[in-house]
């Protein structure tokens, strides 16, 4: 395996990862719409933990280190029950939006 072939394959997988991020954002947005102002609980909490763990480990590999860092921080706080799920979901949606719809450079 050459480095150029590795780079090519990384590009393909990165595209698939970005598509997955769109789905993650839609899922989180739907979750918040369903729960209204109440904090998501139960299965939603488990799903958020799994999602933040996955993003923390993977986003940086695809070139999104800030998303990895944010997801890792949210995951740690969720794990220690130090953050409510609604706040966690909003933080994650913001981080995903910065990757998917980056603000124009000044």
């Amino acid at each position, binding site marked *: *395996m050459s480095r150029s072939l590795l780079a090519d394959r990384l590009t393909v997988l990165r595209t698939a*990862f970005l598509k997955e991020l769109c789905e993650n954002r839609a899922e989180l947005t739907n979750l918040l719409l369903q729960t209204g102002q109440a904090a998501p609980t139960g299965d939603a909490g488990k799903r958020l933990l799994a999602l933040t763990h996955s993003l*923390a*480990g*993977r*986003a940086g*590999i695809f070139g999104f280190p800030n998303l990895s860092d944010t997801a890792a921080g949210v995951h740690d706080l969720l794990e220690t029950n130090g953050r409510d799920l609604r706040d966690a979901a909003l933080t994650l949606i913001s981080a995903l939006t910065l990757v998917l719809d980056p603000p124009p450079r000044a």
Partner: protein
Amino acid sequence: MSLYRIIYADDEADIREIAALALEVDPGFDVMTCASGDAVLELAPRWQPHLILLDCVMPGLDGPETLKRLRQTPGVAETPVAFVTARIQSHEVAQLFMLGASGIVPKPFDAMTLAATVRQFLPS
């Protein structure tokens, strides 16, 4: 050149693929991947790897539990094991070394330098 057999275990399919490709940038590495700790315990005694890389957090058997069971498995009880983990707080790293880890690969890793990082965990 010596060919080192390496097992990489991770429950995320895309990361397994990237890791295998990244490791095989080194022509001295032959890599097989596993999606779970159970799969590692099944493959390792047959394939006799020189190094096993374990994702710390996996459904079912996690990385540390997989290491404990490897240590009780004839033929691979002394095979070096390194963890791939996003948990890099110092006390957690210390726990992994106390379990017998040969090294830690921080996650996310850099695919372009992963092979060089892993080389240092191999027996000379």
